[in-house]
């Protein structure tokens, strides 16, 4: 949308020529400049600039849809991958949603990878068994994927499928495992995912790759997260598939920012207590968190794990 050419927008030819003469070729070029700058650059009066900008905006603007039409679309495509955990599916209004980024957060050992393996299986299952009958990409950055365990889960959860001839091979064959060794390779893989017909993508523990860069400044670390993050999100929406990422928790540092200025001066002691109790926070920081649509938090309560949902 932002790369639409101004020359094709139906502006009066004199105006269109002025734009291209000044090297403003796409909608992005024109709309990134404040009105006054455009006037000065193009040497045209305000009204002409306004009409031109209005026309460019109308074309570059994404189409308007009512929420009702969105709902109707959802009904058509199914819209979610049921997890088979009744309480979770009820809370999620169906299951892991298509077209959005779902994050699994929790301390290590709680069962995120196991949950991912189960999801991969569920997506691979034929639709007669409630699956998506499709292909899964499993991005394993920490080498936690073990096929033996996958088959074991399959055998115990869906014995009638997995014990029949060749089905185990077919199901496992639908799950493609990638092991990117660096952030660049991971990003490259994301781009390649665009060209494959997918039904589910699981990215297991991205933070491993970023830990290497930890000594770099905070600004850089945030920037390096952005391309994969926004890309995943666009991929999920564009292909209307569910994408699940896992995230690790890390201990909260003493200088961790938790308060706003208006909260600051009150009660240092309660603030310390709070820090001691909830000292685990999700890694990768605030900007990543803002981009994720649904966050499932795995917590241990007296030995059993319970996912809680934070949307």
């Amino acid at each position, binding site marked *: 949308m932002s790369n639409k050419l101004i020359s094709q927008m139906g502006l009066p030819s004199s105006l269109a020529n002025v734009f291209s003469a000044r090297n403003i070729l796409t909608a992005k070029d024109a*709309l990134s400049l404040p009105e006054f700058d455009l006037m000065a650059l193009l040497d045209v009066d305000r009204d002409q600039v306004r009409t031109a900008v209005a026309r460019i905006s*109308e074309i*570059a603007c*994404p189409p308007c849809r009512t929420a*009702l039409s969105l709902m109707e679309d*959802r009904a058509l495509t199914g819209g979610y991958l049921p997890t088979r955990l009744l309480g979770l599916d009820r809370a999620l209004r169906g299951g892991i949603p298509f077209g959005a980024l779902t994050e699994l957060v929790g301390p290590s050992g709680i069962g995120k990878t196991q949950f991912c393996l189960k999801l991969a299986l569920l997506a691979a299952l034929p639709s007669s068994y409630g699956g998506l009958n499709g292909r899964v990409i499993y991005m394993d950055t920490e080498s936690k994927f073990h096929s033996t365990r996958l088959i074991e889960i399959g055998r115990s959860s869906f014995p009638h499928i997995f014990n029949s001839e060749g089905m185990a091979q077919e199901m496992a064959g639908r799950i493609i495992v990638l092991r990117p060794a660096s952030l660049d390779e991971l990003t490259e893989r994301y781009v390649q995912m665009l060209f494959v017909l997918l039904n589910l993508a699981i990215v297991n523990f991205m933070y491993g790759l970023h830990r290497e860069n930890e000594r770099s400044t905070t600004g850089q670390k945030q920037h390096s997260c952005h391309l994969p993050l926004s890309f995943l999100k666009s991929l999920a929406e564009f292909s209307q598939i569910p994408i699940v990422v896992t995230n690790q928790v890390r201990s909260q540092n003493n200088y961790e*920012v938790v*308060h706003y200025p208006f909260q600051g001066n009150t009660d240092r002691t309660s603030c310390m207590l709070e820090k001691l109790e909830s000292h685990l926070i999700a890694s990768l920081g605030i900007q990543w968190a*803002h981009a994720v649509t649904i966050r499932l938090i795995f917590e241990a309560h007296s030995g059993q794990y319970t996912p809680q949902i934070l949307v």
Partner: protein
Amino acid sequence: MSASIAMAESSRSGAHALLDGAQTAWDMLSEEQMQKPITTGCEELDTILGGGIQCKAVTEIGGIPGIGKTQLGIQLAVNVQIPVQYGGLGGKAVYIDTEGSFMVERAHQIIEGCIADLFEKFEHRKQSLVCPYILQPNSFLANIFYFRVCSYTEQIAAVNYLEKFLEEHKDIIVVDSITFHFRRDFDDLAMRTRVLGGMSSKLMRFTKKHNLAVVLLNQVTTKFVDGSFQLTLALGDSWSHACTNRIILYWNGNERHAYIDKSPSLRSASAPFQVTSKGIRNVTSNCKRVRMM
């Protein structure tokens, strides 16, 4: 003589010109009192806001991820549609989604919660006030006009296009969030400030011209102030002047609170609220915070 008459004449027409398009404070008062605010669903929050989100104003709402900004945005887009007979505005909503956080199933759930509460509240009336077909989730969904914006160019284009789109009556514009694209792709910060300034003045104009409410959801960032890092809303100091009212949503212990950070007419105050399956509501005794950020 003629010269002084001429001068008197011209000063009168000059005075006329000055008053052209202006309003006296008294006229504005009557207008303000007639203006219905948009309820948030939580009575305590409505109270500190003077009834709810004000029309003819740009309200910025910011907070950390997971605090409930999108929830509040969706709730407002629903509550603006409460029919006049039920004490609402009977309006329509524009929802500009920059992050893809609008989940239509959740909107449906919030609409159902809103309708259920309306019926409960007006139960004592013998006959139904409004034809039942209006109080259907689908008619609410049909009145939420959704734009999915994927870059800052599209965001600017959408705001510009609204000029034309708003010719058909709308009552609230929710932008969720105003920040997302501007934090990533702009290298030239001075340019960013000016583009944001242009966008905010346009939105401000819409509130006055079309008599609607603009709600901008913002993210947080950290700022180094007085020797320590503190949380603040994103987009910098110059942006903070762009909105009329500013509300910060934050965690206070186990509860979600809203704090009025800046407002020309409202006192700084804080109110607790809760995000339930029905949407934004008052706090009851057993709300629970998940202990993670």
